[in-house]
């Protein structure tokens, strides 16, 4: 009986989340049609979709798995570059944009997922904060590697170099595909707002179903008490690896959306560096760790707010840092929790509801 009731509750909560995304999409479309959204804001819509997916996927790692990834921008970078590379090579071979984009998505997600597994195998076996530091290092390495990578194609096939375009040694008919620090130019602009929203919904289906599945409960059991989970026969490394690689693959999807919206894709500290990883973490912390719907809302608000308050741009990063610290102290300090329980009984109720959703 209670099982059925709980089932219903999670389904309802999931439906609210899907409805929220669809609702925001419809409102935005109406606003675009009536012309009440500036072109600047319209240009933000596709990146916004990728940020939402990033926030949801990081929440899977931080909230559900209970580990910290500081290299989500790195996984995004992998997805972005592999898929843009594929699309640029296949522009002539596959003229249908839909099929090409679909394949690019699979490639982006798979390559980011593979990197997730490669990093996860050594690191997730360990107890402690190693994942944070290794993913942080991974993000920086990927950014560096992409910046020294030159790949060209001519009638003889592909040419690789880590020096410059000249050392590719291509025939005159050759075409440079990845041009080191100049990145990839001329990726087909296949990402649209509608596709982005569809991908957000697919991400939500994957993540929400995973959380409420047998595996999801195993993952949360590992998070809450590793030793207890191990003792009832849960394969800790397997489930940790599962959650982390799915999270990495979804970050790769976000990278695909991001890269297919840009004329020139370059790896800079701004888009694929540490700052980006921190920004995603701020979305997750502000939306509530473990609260998927909160991540979506936080990503939207924090992306649009600075655009509306341009004057604050210099202080944006500073404000993010303060918000991060303040939120953590308010939400997790035992003293603050005690104080809240005494004085804000309403909030306590809301908090309880949140906890049950997870």
């Amino acid at each position, binding site marked *: 009986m209670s099982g059925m009731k709980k089932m219903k509750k999670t389904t309802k909560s999931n439906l609210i989340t899907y409805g929220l995304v669809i609702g925001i999409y419809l409102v935005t479309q109406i606003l675009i049609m009536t012309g009440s959204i500036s072109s600047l804001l319209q240009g933000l819509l596709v990146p916004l979709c990728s940020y939402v997916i990033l926030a949801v996927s990081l929440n899977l790692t931080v909230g559900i798995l209970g580990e910290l990834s500081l290299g989500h921008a790195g996984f995004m970078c992998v997805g972005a570059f592999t898929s843009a590379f594929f699309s640029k090579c296949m522009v002539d071979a596959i003229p249908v944009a839909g099929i090409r984009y679909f394949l690019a998505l699979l490639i982006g997600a798979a390559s980011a997922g593979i990197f997730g597994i490669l990093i996860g195998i050594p*690191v997730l076996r360990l107890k402690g904060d*190693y994942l944070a530091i*290794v993913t942080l*290092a991974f993000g920086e390495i990927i950014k560096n*590697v992409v910046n020294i990578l030159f790949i060209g194609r001519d009638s003889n096939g592909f040419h690789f170099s880590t020096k410059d375009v000249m050392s590719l040694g291509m025939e005159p008919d050759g075409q440079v595909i990845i041009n080191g620090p100049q990145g990839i130019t001329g990726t087909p602009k296949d990402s649209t707002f509608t596709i982005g929203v569809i991908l957000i919904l697919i991400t939500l289906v994957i993540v929400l179903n995973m959380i409420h599945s047998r595996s999801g409960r195993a993952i949360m059991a590992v998070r809450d008490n590793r030793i207890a989970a191990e003792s009832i026969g849960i394969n800790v490394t397997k489930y940790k690896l599962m959650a982390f690689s799915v999270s990495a693959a979804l970050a790769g999807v976000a990278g695909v959306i991001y890269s297919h919206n840009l004329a020139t894709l370059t790896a800079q500290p701004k888009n694929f560096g540490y700052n980006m990883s921190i920004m995603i*973490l701020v979305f997750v*912390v502000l939306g509530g760790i473990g609260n998927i719907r909160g991540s979506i809302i936080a990503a939207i608000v924090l992306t649009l707010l600075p655009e509306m308050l341009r004057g604050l741009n210099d202080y944006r990063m*500073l404000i993010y840092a303060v918000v991060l610290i303040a939120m953590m102290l308010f939400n*997790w300090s035992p003293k603050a929790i005690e104080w809240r329980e005494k004085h804000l009984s309403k909030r306590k109720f809301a908090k309880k509801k949140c906890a049950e959703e997870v």
Partner: protein
Amino acid sequence: MSFISYLINGISLGSVYAIIALGYTMVYGIAKMLNFAHGDVIMIGAYVVLTAMTSAGLPAYAAVLIAVVFCTLLGMLIERVAYKPLRNAASPLAVLITAIGVSYLLQNIALLIFGANTKSFTSVVPIPPVVLADGNLTITGETIMTIAACIVIMIGLTVFIKKSKSGQAMLAVSEDRGAAQLMGINVNKTIALTFAIGSALAAIAGVLLCSAYPTLTPYTGAMPGIKAFVAAVFGGIGSIPGAMIGGILLGVIEIFGKAYISSQMADAIVFGVLIIVLLVKPAGILGKNIQEKV
């Protein structure tokens, strides 16, 4: 001859990593937390020295002294405001995320005050370079100073922990916080002292780092901080001689990687080392393998 010169450079860079890693490893041993902001304290220390020397016109030793005092207070302040309230939090992620927030805050404060432009740092080391082997091998004063500082700090710290009451208290708290408290040790004070020592070392490391590599930006501390953490893991986190060995080995690996493999891939090599260490010997060279208790 170039091999020896690379080796000396590597040991010098490694000594800086070792000094930073000492701060990491002490804090990790006692507070069981990864202090992400440690690298940024280095950067703040370097800016304090720079400001004291260029704007206030103070002599180098006075500037370094001010930086050490400033960073000590800063470290204690951070611990008191941001970390202490979360000491008994339900999730171990809470304090980690807060530490990232603090790191980010320090970087952005420095960005607002000093700007994003690279500042050139004048070396504070008065020792002239030593030329050996008919001019084929030059050892800079910074190198000598760094290695000497590293050895002095290492010996000083070991003696402090072995002989003094506060040092023994630190050991006790890192072994078992609850039991230490029952024995009458003031745990809060001991943790604050650890942060103070770690941050003071960070200030010294900042000065040495910027004397050897004379550029300074708000992000100067981030990378050496992360590498020092790698060094601490390499040597065995929580172990003081381990931090030393790990730091020096890592410095040598980095410089050799830069010289013989690829200068752009040196960072990747360093982090590759971290992943290999985690695969082969997760406890590090001198680390203890602690069994979990239910």
